[in-house]
C-alpha cells in the first residue's frame, strides 16, 4: 500500500459519521417520554406481548388439545353438507353455523353451532361428514381471548388491547428517536458488569433488529383492537351512528332476512361445488351458514389462494347455492386487500412454520424488551441512590408469573372435567405477585422459573399419558416435545453460577 493511499484511508477512517448527530437535549427529552410511557403501560404491554407470542401457535394448540382427530387433508362437498345436516338434525333451531374445512394448519372438519348464547358447541366430523365428537379446547380459547380482549367484555377488551398497541407503537417511535448510537452499537451485546448497561444492551439490540416486526405487530394490533371505536366514530359522522352500515361496506352482497321456513335447507355441498368451479385455483377454508332453514338462509364461503398475504376472499351465496358475488378481499380495492392482510400479518399466519417460529421468538423478544425496560428504570433509580426494592420484587414476580400461570392453567384444563383456565390463570398470577412480599428478586426469579419449568414438563407428561393411546394427530407429540424442550431450557437458565451483575455508576 503506498503512502498516498495510506493518507486517503486515514482521512476516510477518521472522517465524521454520515448520520446526523442527534442533539443531546432532544435525546434526553425523548427518553423521558419513553420512560414515562413504558412504565405506565409496562404490565399491559408485557401481558399482550407474552400472550401474543403464545397465540402464534393457536392452531397447533387447538390440535394438541384434541389430538384424537380425525385428521383430514381434504374433504368432499357431500361430506361437508352431511356434517351440516347432522348438526341441524341435533339442533334444528340453530341460527348460524360456522363450518371449518380441513387446511394444512388445521386438518379437521368442524361445525360450530351458536344456537343459544353461552351454549355454543363445536362438533368434529369424519371424512364422511358423520359427527364423531365434540371439540372442546378450553385452554386454546383461553389463551386466544387473553390476547385479543384480556377476558374483558369484547368492546372494552378490544379497546384496552388496541390502546396497548398504540402505547407500544409510541414507545417504538420515542425509543428509535432516543437512540443516538443506533448503528454504532448495532451489534454490541455485553453481558455482566453494570446491570443497567447490560439491560440497556439487551433492550436496544432486540428493539433495533426486531424493529420491522415490532412495527408490524403493534400497528396491526392497535388497528384491530381499535376497529370498534374507529368504525363507531365514522358511523357517527356519516351514517347517523348506524355502525352496521359501515360494516356492510365490507360484507359484500346482502340477503334480506326472511324468517319464514324454506322449502329445503341450504345445500352446502352444492355451494362449495359452485365456488370451486368459479375459483379452481383457491381452497375453501370455512363456510358461515346464516339462518339455515329460513327463506333468508344464505352462506358465506371463505377462499384462500396460495401465495397471498390474506385471510382469503369471501363469496356470498343465496339459499339456492347461487353465487351472489364476492367482497373483493383478494381482487378488490386496495382497502379490502390491506384489511385482509391484517390478521395473518399480526399473528404470523402466512409463511409456514419458519415464519411462525420467527414470530414466536421475536414476540418473546418484545416481551423481554418490556421487562428490560423496567429493569433499566429500576437500575437507574438504584444508581441514583433511590432504590425501589418493592417494585423490583413485584416486577420480577409479575414477569415470571406468566409462564407459570399459563402452564398451570393448561395442566388444570387437561386434568379437570370442568376446567376454568381463566380463573386458574388469574389466581396463579395473583398468588405469584403476592409471593413478591417474601423473597429477594434473584430468588424469586429462580424459584418461579423452576416451578414454571416443572409445570411445563408436567403438562407434556400428563398430555402424553392421557392422550397417548388416542393421539392420531402427530401435532400432539410435536407440542409435547416442544413443551419439554422449553421446560428444559427454562430450567437450564436457573443453573448459571455466574455472579449477578452489579448496579453502579460505570
Amino acid at each position, binding site marked *: 500500500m503506498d503512502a498516498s493511499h495510506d493518507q486517503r484511508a486515514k482521512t476516510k477512517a477518521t472522517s465524521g459519521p454520515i448520520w446526523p448527530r442527534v442533539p443531546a437535549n432532544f435525546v434526553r427529552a425523548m427518553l*423521558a417520554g419513553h420512560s*414515562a410511557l413504558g412504565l405506565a403501560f409496562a404490565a399491559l404491554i408485557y401481558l399482550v406481548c407474552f400472550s401474543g407470542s403464545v397465540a402464534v401457535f393457536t392452531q397447533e394448540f387447538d390440535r394438541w388439545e384434541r389430538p384424537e382427530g380425525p385428521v383430514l387433508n381434504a374433504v368432499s362437498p357431500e361430506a361437508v353438507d352431511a356434517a351440516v345436516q347432522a348438526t341441524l338434525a341435533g339442533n334444528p333451531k340453530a341460527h348460524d353455523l360456522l363450518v371449518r374445512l380441513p387446511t394444512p394448519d388445521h386438518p379437521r372438519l368442524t361445525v360450530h353451532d351458536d344456537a343459544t348464547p353461552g351454549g355454543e358447541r363445536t362438533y368434529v366430523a369424519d371424512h364422511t361428514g358423520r359427527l364423531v365428537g365434540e371439540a372442546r379446547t378450553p385452554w386454546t380459547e383461553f389463551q386466544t381471548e387473553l390476547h385479543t380482549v384480556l377476558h374483558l367484555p369484547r368492546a372494552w377488551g378490544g379497546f384496552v388491547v388496541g390502546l396497548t398497541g398504540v402505547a407500544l407503537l*409510541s414507545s417504538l417511535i420515542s425509543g428509535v428517536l432516543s437512540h443516538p448510537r443506533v448503528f454504532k452499537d448495532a451489534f454490541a451485546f455485553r453481558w455482566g458488569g453494570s446491570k443497567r448497561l447490560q439491560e440497556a444492551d439487551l433492550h436496544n439490540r432486540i428493539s433495533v433488529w426486531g424493529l420491522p416486526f415490532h412495527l408490524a405487530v403493534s400497528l396491526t394490533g392497535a388497528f384491530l383492537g381499535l376497529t370498534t371505536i374507529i368504525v363507531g366514530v365514522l358511523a357517527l359522522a356519516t351514517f347517523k351512528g348506524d355502525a352496521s352500515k359501515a360494516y356492510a361496506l365490507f360484507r359484500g352482497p346482502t340477503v334480506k332476512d326472511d324468517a319464514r321456513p324454506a322449502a329445503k335447507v341450504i345445500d352446502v355441498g352444492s355451494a362449495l361445488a359452485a365456488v370451486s368451479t368459479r375459483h379452481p385455483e383457491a381452497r375453501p377454508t370455512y363456510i358461515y351458514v346464516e339462518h339455515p332453514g329460513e327463506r333468508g338462509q344464505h352462506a358465506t364461503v371463505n377462499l384462500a389462494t396460495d401465495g397471498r398475504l390474506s385471510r382469503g376472499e369471501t363469496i356470498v351465496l343465496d339459499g339456492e347455492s347461487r353465487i351472489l358475488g364476492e367482497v373483493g378481499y383478494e381482487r378488490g380495492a386496495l382497502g379490502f386487500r390491506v384489511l385482509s392482510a391484517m390478521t395473518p400479518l399480526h399473528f404470523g399466519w402466512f409463511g409456514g412454520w419458519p415464519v411462525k417460529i420467527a414470530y414466536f421468538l421475536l414476540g418473546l423478544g418484545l416481551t423481554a424488551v418490556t421487562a428490560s425496560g423496567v429493569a433499566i428504570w429500576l437500575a437507574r433509580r438504584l444508581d441514583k441512590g433511590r432504590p425501589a426494592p418493592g417494585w423490583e420484587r413485584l416486577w420480577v414476580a409479575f414477569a415470571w408469573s406468566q409462564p407459570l400461570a399459563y402452564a398451570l392453567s393448561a395442566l388444570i384444563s387437561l386434568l379437570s372435567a370442568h376446567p376454568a383456565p381463566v380463573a386458574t390463570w388469574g389466581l396463579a398470577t395473583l398468588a405469584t405477585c403476592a409471593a413478591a412480599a417474601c423473597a429477594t428478586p434473584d430468588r424469586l426469579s429462580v424459584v418461579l422459573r423452576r416451578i414454571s419449568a416443572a409445570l411445563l414438563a408436567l403438562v407434556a407428561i400428563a398430555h402424553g399419558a392421557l392422550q397417548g393411546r388416542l393421539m392420531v394427530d402427530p401435532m400432539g407429540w410435536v407440542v409435547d416435545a416442544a413443551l419439554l424442550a422449553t421446560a428444559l431450557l427454562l430450567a437450564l437458565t436457573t443453573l448459571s453460577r455466574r455472579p449477578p451483575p452489579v448496579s453502579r455508576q460505570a
Partner: protein
Amino acid sequence: MSALWVLAMTPLPLCGAVLLKRAWTGPSPERPWLILGGWSLMALAVGVSIPLMGPARGPAAILAVGSAAVLALVAAGVERRSARAKATRELAPEPSDRRRVAWRGWLRGFLAGPLAGVAALGCGLAVAICGPGEIQTRMVIGGLIVPFLWAGGMAWTLSDDKILRAFAVLASVAGLTLGAAFLKGAM
C-alpha cells in the same frame, strides 16, 4: 414450499449483517463498501422474496425470519463482562430531569391519551370521508392512520417540555379535522 423459500433466502440478510458488523466494529477504509454491501444484501433478500413468495407475503416473511436470524447472530457475539471490572464505555444517555408538578403530569396524560387520540381520530376520519379513492380504501387507510398518529402524538406530548404548545396544536388539529369530517359527512 414457502417454508423452504424463506429458509433458502435467510443467508442473504445474515451475510448482510455480517458485513455491517465488520463495518461498524471500527473505522477502516473498507467501511463504506461494507455498509453498502451489507444493506444491498438485505435489500436483495427482500427483492428476491417478491417473485418467489408474493409481493406482500415475501417481504413480510423475509423481514420476520431475517430479523430473528440477525438477532441470533448478535446473541452469538455476546461479550461477557466481569462484575468487578470497571466499565470503559460511557453511560447510556439520561432522561431529562423534569420538575414534578402534579397538574403538568395530569395535563400531559390528558394530552397523550384522550386529546392525541381524538386528534388522530379526526385525521383518520378526515381521510376516510374527504380523501380520494373508493370508500373502503379510504376507511382502511384512515383507520390505519389513527393508531400511527395517536402513537406519534403520544411520543411528542410526553417528551415536549412545552405542553401548552402541544395542547394548542392537538386541540386545533382535533377541531379542524373532526369539524371537516362531520361537516362533509353530514352533507
